[in-house]
């Protein structure tokens, strides 16, 4: 039996950027805007075209994952613990109106409206690898701008060493936040994640509002999420309502749920296994054979952030 290596297949399947733009969605969105701008903004804008300039500096040889896969195979426990739950249930999330509070150790704390966030910096498209801690990966063209553009205006104080992200808590919009049988709750809400301030300010860290040329689908963390491509996917908080600057390392949702399994850093590292499984290989969604996982998920430019650290201990 001849098993083709992934690379052979992928090069022919590279999707042209123009194809990301779902023409029908774009036209519907444009028509809605022309007829009633206010109404279009109030409605869920997922699927609307979102113009952005491709930042070629981050282009990679890997072919992007199909939009259909990236928008139906999601870990977003606010909607449920199964991968298909978010796409099925995401209609309840209302990404407009939306505000994000940026506060904590900052000279100018501020609450931003999502519409203002969208105008803070030019939107770029960046194709990033996404590696899930579960051992699968995707390649996704995100749209956003560096998180630093949002953090600098609030002027973090000298005492600020960390950034904490919080996801919206609203069981009406997030069915996964409703109590289950025996008061079972999958995670301790709100979902919180965190970065060291230098990680948060790293140019790779993307404040994200879209993907595949469109406004971010609800199930992918609308209307506002971060993407930190050199860390396992769960570090990239979704549907963010608060970004807090702190002096102490923030508690994160997964390290609270299973402290011995999920560290604060959670950098992609093929040599440091998850306690229950190996991280040496991954399955790229759309491919058959597993591929080797790359150190820092292939983003070697972040290595200097961790020089002198024992990555086996500070995982």
């Amino acid at each position, binding site marked *: 039996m001849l*098993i083709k290596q992934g690379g052979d297949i992928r090069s022919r399947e590279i999707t042209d950027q123009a194809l990301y733009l779902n023409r029908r969605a774009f036209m519907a969105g444009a028509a809605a805007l022309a007829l009633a701008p206010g109404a279009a903004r109030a409605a869920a804008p997922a699927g609307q075209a979102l113009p952005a300039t491709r930042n070629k500096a981050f282009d990679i040889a890997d072919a992007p*994952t*199909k939009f*259909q*896969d*990236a928008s*139906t*195979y999601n870990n977003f*426990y606010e909607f449920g*613990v199964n*991968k*298909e739950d978010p796409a099925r249930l995401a209609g309840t999330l209302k990404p407009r109106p939306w505000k994000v509070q940026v506060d904590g150790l900052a000279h100018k704390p501020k609450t931003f409206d999502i519409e203002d966030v969208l105008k803070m910096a030019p939107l770029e498209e960046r194709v990033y690898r996404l590696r899930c801690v579960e051992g*699968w990966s995707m390649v996704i063209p995100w749209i956003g701008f560096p998180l630093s553009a949002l953090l600098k205006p609030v002027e973090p104080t000298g005492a600020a060493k960390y950034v904490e992200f919080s996801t919206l808590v609203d069981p009406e919009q997030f069915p996964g936040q409703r109590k*289950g*049988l025996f008061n*079972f709750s*999958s*995670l301790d809400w709100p979902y919180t994640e965190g970065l060291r301030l230098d990680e948060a300010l790293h140019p790779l860290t993307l404040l994200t509002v879209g993907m595949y040329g469109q406004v971010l689908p609800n199930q992918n963390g609308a209307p506002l999420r971060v993407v930190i491509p050199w860390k396992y996917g769960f570090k990239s908080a979704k549907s963010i309502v608060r970004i807090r600057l702190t002096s102490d390392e923030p508690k994160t949702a997964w390290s609270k*749920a*299973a402290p011995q399994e999920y560290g604060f850093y959670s950098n992609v590292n093929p040599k440091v296994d998850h306690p*229950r*499984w*190996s991280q*040496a*290989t991954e*399955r790229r*969604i*759309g491919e*058959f*054979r*597993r591929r080797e996982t790359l150190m820092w998920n292939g983003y070697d430019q972040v290595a200097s952030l961790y020089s002198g650290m024992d990555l086996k201990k500070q995982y």
Partner: protein
Amino acid sequence: MTRRGRVALKALVWAACLAPLAVLAYRALTGDLTANPISFVTNWLGDWTLRILLTSLAMTPLRILFRWSWPVTLRRLLGLFAFFYAALHFSVWLVLDHFFAWSQMGADIVKRPYITVGMTALVLMIPLAATSTAGAIRWLGGARWQWLHRLVYVIGVCAVLHYLWLAKKANPDPYYYAAALVLLLAIRVGDWGRRRVARMSPSPRPSPQRGERA
């Protein structure tokens, strides 16, 4: 139960046990195996292994609780189907997931407790499946055969642990399976205690309440 009733019951079990495979085949043909088909198929087969295994372990408790005799006639069929699904589950892991990467899989079996117990469950099922025939019962003798087949309790525990240890803490499903197994084993222990008390007491007055607590 009449002969026709028994045949109908077995036919029903066959249909019920093959249905998950039929659904899986249908989903495969219609391209409905999610973005990560290998993982989906592995989990699907694992889920059904556990469900059928626990169903087979529920037959004796049904007899104990309701004094029905028919459930026990389905144990062998259910047990063999559980083995069938376990073998498929393992094959997907071996062929599709790791593509015969023996060294990596060997390391995983030793290093990853959830894989260790999963492999243990599968390996222990082999002698049970192999001695499931009437001929094997005669060859081993009833008592020895029964003793051997008590391994199914170890298999049940290993299978539930396999799921508990592989799933993320936030997923409640493995706890439901664990609760079901505990309940099924508790009914057996209760019955065993009740019969023991009945045997030992000079005037045979079995007390179900006391027995259940034993």
